């Protein structure tokens, strides 16, 4: 039956198509809400788990300046986690629920953090490559359709570009240093290059959620588009550093004005997603342990706040 009235869903889609923001109190399809909760909480969890591989080097940073920058960077990630958990909470979930899902293994986080950080060059690679890939994924999210997420991402992206620069600077210092330092940088690039390409997710042909997310403007570019953009951006930077990208099939393609590059090892990708990466177990255990060992602290803070409230109420009653 035809009607001139637009359905709620049609009105919603019309707002999205007009590039208007959806706000917490607006009506939204259940699937949109669920997709966003999944994506934002996954993003928040990635910030939280992402503190661990870099945290691994704070106590071993090679100078006071580097130590200070690295600590500030990891602290920023905790801050990003906070904004993102808050953004997800506007959709009707709670931080406790999201953390429970992370700890049970139900919720995912970025697989990249399941790779170990083995040398100081890894602090360079994480900043330069991993944060570089994250920025490509995240900059379009500053215009994502859901308001609180878009606003959180504006703050996150500002800090991420600083992170990427400091990562590149670590690499540059190593590449201009001793032969051992240069070798450290190359070895880091060899390990991080392919996992970073995996950060853009499965091939478009195997990414079932992409079309719907693009339609809802939660996502603005496809996985393969972003992966291509990343390679095109990073290869000249690696050349500038005097490093070799570990891909024998990497070749400039004049016609497409971009690089052709080899295929990601998708078997490895799916294995790490399924929990078989080098550090999946350790990362999750570290988070679970911090949460469990912190339980008495959270209980004490709550108990004290209640006692204080009761005392104040009693005081007010007596007055």
């Amino acid at each position, binding site marked *: 039956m035809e009607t001139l009235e637009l359905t709620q869903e049609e009105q919603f889609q019309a707002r999205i198509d007009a590039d208007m923001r959806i706000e917490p109190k607006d009506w939204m399809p259940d699937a949109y809400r669920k997709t966003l909760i999944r994506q934002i909480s996954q993003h928040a969890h990635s910030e939280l788990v992402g503190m661990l591989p870099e945290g691994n080097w704070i106590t071993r940073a*090679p100078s006071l300046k580097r130590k200070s920058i690295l600590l500030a960077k990891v602290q920023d990630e905790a801050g990003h986690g906070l904004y993102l958990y808050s953004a997800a909470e506007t959709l009707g979930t709670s931080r406790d629920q999201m953390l429970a899902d992370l700890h049970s293994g139900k919720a995912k986080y970025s697989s990249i953090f399941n790779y170990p950080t083995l040398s100081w060059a890894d602090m360079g690679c994480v900043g330069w490559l991993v944060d570089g890939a994250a920025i490509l994924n995240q900059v379009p999210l500053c215009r994502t359709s859901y308001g609180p997420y878009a606003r959180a991402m504006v703050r996150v992206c500002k800090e991420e570009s600083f992170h990427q620069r400091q990562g590149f600077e670590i690499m540059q210092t190593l590449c201009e240093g001793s032969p051992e330092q240069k070798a450290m940088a190359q070895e880091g690039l060899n390990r991080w290059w392919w996992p970073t390409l995996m950060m853009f997710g499965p091939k478009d042909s195997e990414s079932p959620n992409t079309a719907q997310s693009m339609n809802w403007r939660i996502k603005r570019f496809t996985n393969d588009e972003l992966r291509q953009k990343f390679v095109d951006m990073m290869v000249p930077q690696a050349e500038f550093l005097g490093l070799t990208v570990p891909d024998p099939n990497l070749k400039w393609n004049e016609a497409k004005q971009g690089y052709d590059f080899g295929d990601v090892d998708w078997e490895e990708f799916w294995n790490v997603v399924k929990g078989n990466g080098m550090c999946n177990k350790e990362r999750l255990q570290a988070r679970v342990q911090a949460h469990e060992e912190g339980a008495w*602290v959270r209980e004490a803070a709550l108990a004290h706040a209640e006692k204080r409230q009761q005392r104040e109420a009693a005081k007010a009653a007596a007055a």
Partner: protein
Amino acid sequence: MMTDPTMPSQAAAASSPETPTQLFHYVLQLADTSLILAHRLSEWCGHGPILEQDLAMANIALDLLGEARSYYQYAAELEGKGRTEDDLAYLRSAVEYRNPLLVEQPNGDFASTILRQFIYDAFHYHLLLQLKSGPDAQLAAIAEKSVKEAAYHIKWSSEWVIRLGDGTEESRRRVEKAIENLWRYAGELTTPSATEKALQAAGFLPDYVAIQQQIDAHVVRVFEEATLPVPQGVFMQKGGKDGRHSEHLGYLLAELQYLQRTYPGLQW
């Protein structure tokens, strides 16, 4: 602001020929203390009991690290031998480190970390209040900047002592255990070393008796609100300020200094 080590201050009336060296050692002691505590706090990063407190501990660690760098840079100037902040932090062995024993103690549980921080903050804050109007201009400038941060630190750790003391049975048990383990390191902070005594005599450092009184008053106030008994008659350990440390410092430095020691003389 280069300081001529032979002329440390115009205001110091009673300075002696040894004063510049003593001042160098004292500034180094301040630097080591801030660095070691910052290092311990940074070990929590990513493992805190609540995300907000993870952030708070990283914040305090960053403040202390910044303060340590100011002191190391000043110490390097005072020494005048071309050493850098990193040479001083990364290329001195445990026996050369001058931090008091308290700050090198391992984190333990959150209650231990809080109590260690509380004992240190009570001293640090009240010391900086004095140093900021002291006769050495550079030290006064560093103290002036740092005291604002230390005011936040003492507020944070005091509030947590209160929460834990007057929280649940478990939090109280844990904070009592932390007091039992850590109070014995409080005394060293205000027991002047030979260097500190000489600088006090030269008018560079305040007398610690007054600072001790301010610390005591703060402790009594906080412990009362936390419903915790103030420790009495505890035997106080000392030695850190003279380079005699606990076993913990060697491991901490092995980790902290690893890259500089493995690849000497490189830029990072």
